[in-house]
């Protein structure tokens, strides 16, 4: 992501230090991850220490300091999904993809995350891939769903 685009985002928020998180959210959303160079530019423009930016980037789950895979798998592990068996779904997905939550596979195909509630508890257990919600998942169906993605 080039500096011009970052400057545009920063200026949209009037280069206010308190908008730091909003600026980072926009960069994350557009670029799919936060390269160090981008953060250094933000540090310069907003006059905020890089240490603080790195703490924020690692504190909040929305941010990633490494590139993410083509398909984002989000498994809801909220309480309602948990009691309906989300752990078993998560285990199955981990076995199928070979990665743990927070990781991306070597082909940059899948990134796996756990989420703490997607708000569709009636459909639990829920797995969301690329924004598409797969509800009432069973371990038996999980392989079929995952194998559909290139």
């Amino acid at each position, binding site marked *: 992501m080039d500096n011009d685009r970052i400057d545009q985002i920063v200026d949209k928020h009037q280069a206010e230090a308190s908008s730091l998180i909003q600026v980072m959210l926009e960069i994350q959303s557009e670029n799919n991850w936060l390269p160090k160079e981008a953060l250094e530019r933000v540090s310069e423009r907003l006059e905020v220490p*890089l*240490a603080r930016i*790195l*703490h924020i980037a*690692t*504190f909040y789950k929305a941010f990633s300091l490494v590139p993410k895979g083509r398909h984002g798998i989000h498994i809801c592990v909220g309480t309602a999904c948990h009691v309906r068996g989300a752990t078993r779904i998560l285990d199955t997905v981990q076995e199928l993809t070979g990665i743990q939550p927070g990781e991306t596979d070597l082909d940059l195909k899948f990134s796996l995350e756990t989420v703490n509630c997607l708000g569709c508890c009636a459909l639990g257990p829920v797995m969301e891939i690329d924004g598409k919600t797969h509800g009432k998942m069973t371990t038996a169906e999980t392989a079929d769903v995952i194998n559909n993605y290139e």
Partner: protein
Amino acid sequence: MSEILLQIDGKEVKAKEGMTILEAARSAGISIPTLCHHEKLEPFGGCRLCIVEVEDRGWTKLVVSCVYPAEENLVVRTRSDKVDRIRKMIIELLMAHAPDAFELQDLAKEYGADRDRFEKEASFCIHCGLCVRYCAEVKKKNAVGFVGRGTKKEISFIPEIASKECWDCKECFPLCPTEALQAAYVLTKALFSSRSSS
């Protein structure tokens, strides 16, 4: 500045307005243990070791003395069964990370803490934050900071800044209660130089 009268461990203490209980106690020669406190730094309130009992309008509650303001007519107890129990547990929890730290060993003796109560953890850091806060507030370099949250929180030197600033400074090294801070710095330096020279 006006004067405040409060009672600490049965003793009448005169404090200046704006003082915390910790400052008031120390001015009267009453000791309260701390780990994350430093006169040059803003109070942090992270280690909770300085916890004390205060009585306020009939209610007893536990507060951290490094942050809680000294108030008129406050009754403070720096030791009690509950306070001692909590301090003992805090020491034991921290000794899972840094069992050999001198400060922790002294505290363990005082409070009867068992250094082996919990299985040893991989990370030495007890998160007192002295290194991070000193570099931010006193040196204003922010060469070392916190990363992550919860049980995965750690300190981290920022290679680009640390490689420029730290070797000529090193003022945070003696602040570290676990004495392992310089090891973290050396490791970062080694990783960074090997990366930039390849």
